[in-house]
């Protein structure tokens, strides 16, 4: 496996073998350990010393199902700390089949100079001028790139928000239908890509240099058994194909933990209009698609395609977190508007969560009424134009809070929370507070522990330990190149044995079951170390004050943990 090193200062591209120190990592493990090793922690995130790293997970480029996730890492312009966001679609598998483990983008092009990094089937890469694509939104960009370079290319790209270097800017990835609708959304990584002068990475699909598998027979046998395990699980095998992540709308509202109207209520009055069930029915009526395959080699099919009343494509996939940020938080109980806002985020290149919460903070401050659908869409267009007010919104909820003098901003380390109120699911509050990534549901979501009756969402017992173990698990899982939904099946002792066997068959290593957890700890320690060097302290591991002071209906409780208790989360 190779590394491609791209220097945007002098537009050079070099290829080197993957150094030994990174073997046994991949995805988030590789990006975070490399950033901690190579990026000056005090650097300007939008300056030449930051590095933007695209790293496939350990199983990308193999025949393993659901193995098309690529991690993107850098110092974040949003949080000021380390960042990893991973994205599905087609890029991860395509990069893996070129035997490329990582693309490391260093330096910074001259202001206004824009390039595309184009890979070929031999695993080589070149920078080409992208001046003609300047300012394009992602759907038009990808259509143009496919017309010019061929449709059998995966694309990772930024929209106008990334070119403007907005702190909510995402990096979008193309799905199997060639739509740039999959997002490495969090942390403003699109701004880092824009600052470097990189508009897109084009990766040919169909490479023949598959990632090496040392013990092919064992790998084949264990991966089939693992696939059967996933398909037999009622969550991955039945619920996700039917409803996708939107299946969470009903249970989270029914637990009183769905942050609504800028986190002033825990149950949204209109939730049944925007539930997974309502979404699936609407999609069916309009000849859209549930059980859609969005990512290469996917067997779970959690994606969907949402059409308008005339049966025309609007967006893919309308997911739980966006239904919340653009629906519950803003008071918009209309799926058509939510789907439109989802599309606009993908097209402009924005994190749906940070953007929805930013709109909600402004509505809460009286800028517009909660539930004002037209206003939400107008705000999106202001962001796309890069107007003064658009820049405020594009930089996320904390800047919006400052602009409108509203302290009620549900964010940690400047990154918005996700769709679980820390007062209604207190373990998620621990994860939001302490994650090295800023408030992030994929860093250690506790919702399944509550629905599975393992923990009470409102009682302190076991929450810190649960968050700790979840954060360790997710750090390791994000290194594998499989989506979290597949990885959630690695829960029983038998499944852990099976997964360890797969790692060893892939690498020729001697991992024991605990080595998965050990990798997670190694990653979190590297991330914590970087954040410390970057100037983040335990005072940054805090929820906003209103979560401690304002009781959340319907339970009318506040976040209950002391600072000492929060700080014990990373005791490992």
């Amino acid at each position, binding site marked *: 496996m190779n590394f491609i090193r791209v220097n945007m200062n002098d537009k050079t591209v070099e290829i080197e073998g993957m150094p030994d120190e990174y073997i046994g990592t991949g995805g988030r493990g590789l990006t975070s350990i490399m950033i901690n090793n190579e990026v000056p922690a005090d650097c300007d995130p939008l300056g030449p010393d930051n590095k933007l790293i695209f790293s496939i997970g350990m199983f990308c480029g193999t025949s393993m199902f659901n193995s098309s996730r690529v991690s993107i890492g850098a110092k974040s312009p949003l949080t000021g700390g380390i960042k990893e966001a991973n994205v599905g679609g087609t890029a991860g598998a395509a990069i893996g089949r070129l035997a490329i483990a990582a693309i490391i983008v260093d330096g910074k092009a001259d202001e206004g100079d824009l390039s595309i990094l184009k890979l070929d089937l031999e695993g080589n890469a070149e920078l080409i001028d992208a001046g003609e694509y300047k300012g394009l939104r992602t759907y038009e960009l990808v259509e143009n790139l496919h017309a010019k370079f061929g449709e059998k290319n995966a694309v990772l790209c930024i929209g106008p928000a990334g070119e403007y270097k907005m702190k909510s800017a995402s990096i979008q990835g193309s799905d199997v239908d060639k739509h740039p609708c999959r997002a490495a959304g969090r942390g403003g990584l699109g701004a880092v890509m824009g600052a470097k002068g990189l508009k897109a990475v084009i990766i040919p699909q169909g490479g023949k240099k598959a990632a090496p598998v040392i013990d092919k027979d064992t790998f084949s046998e264990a991966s089939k058994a693992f696939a059967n395990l996933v398909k037999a699980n*009622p*969550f991955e095998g*039945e*619920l996700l194909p*039917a*409803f996708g*992540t939107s*299946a*969470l709308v*009903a*249970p989270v509202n*029914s*637990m*009183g933990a769905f942050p609504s109207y800028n986190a002033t209520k*825990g*149950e949204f009055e209109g939730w*049944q209009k925007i*539930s*997974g*069930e309502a979404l699936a029915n609407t999609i069916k009526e309009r000849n859209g698609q549930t059980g859609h395959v969005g990512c290469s080699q996917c067997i779970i099919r959690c994606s969907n395609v949402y059409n308008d009343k005339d049966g025309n494509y609007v967006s893919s996939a309308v997911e*739980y977190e966006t239904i919340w940020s653009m629906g519950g938080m803003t008071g918009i109980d209309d799926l058509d508007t939510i789907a439109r806002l989802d599309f606009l985020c993908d097209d402009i290149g924005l994190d749906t969560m940070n953007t929805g919460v930013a709109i909600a903070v402004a509505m809460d401050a009286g800028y517009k009424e909660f539930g004002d659908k037209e206003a939400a869409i107008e705000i999106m267009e202001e962001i796309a134009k890069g107007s003064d007010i658009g820049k405020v919104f594009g930089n996320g909820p904390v800047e919006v809070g400052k602009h409108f003098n509203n302290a009620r901003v549900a964010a940690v380390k400047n990154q918005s929370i*996700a*769709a*679980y109120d820390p007062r209604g699911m207190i373990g998620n509050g621990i994860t939001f507070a302490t994650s090295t990534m800023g408030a992030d*549901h*994929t860093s250690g*979501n506790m*919702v*399944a522990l*509550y*629905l*599975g*009756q393992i923990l*009470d*969402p*409102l009682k302190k017992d076991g929450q810190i330990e649960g968050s700790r173990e979840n954060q360790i698990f997710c750090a390791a899982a994000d290194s594998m190149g499989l*989506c*979290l*939904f597949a990885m*959630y099946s690695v829960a029983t002792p038998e499944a852990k044995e099976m997964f360890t066997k797969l790692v060893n068959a892939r690498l020729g290593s001697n991992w024991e079951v605990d080595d998965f957890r050990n990798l997670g700890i190694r990653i979190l320690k590297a991330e914590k170390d970087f954040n410390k060097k970057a100037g983040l302290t335990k005072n940054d591991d805090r929820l906003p004050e209103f979560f401690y002071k304002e009781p959340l209906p*319907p*339970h009318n409780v506040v976040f209950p943990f002391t600072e000492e208790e929060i700080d014990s989360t990373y005791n490992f």
Partner: protein
Amino acid sequence: MKVKIQLFGVLGLKLPEFASPEGVEIELPDDSTAGGLLEYLKIPETWGPAVSMDSRLLKYEDPVRDGDEIRVFQAVHGG
């Protein structure tokens, strides 16, 4: 006693006789629990069911009462 139930997710597809957006009223023995409700509905534990009432998740041994409005889901991971 009578309770009103609402099924969500795949449960509504698997048990169409109990599936209605407005909920379905059913009759249970007076000392019923959340677990007893699941037995009545023939929802096995392997489906990962979760039961809520009044914005709280119920344990399987928790009682249900006459007139309760109960929602039944399947366990879901976030991602």
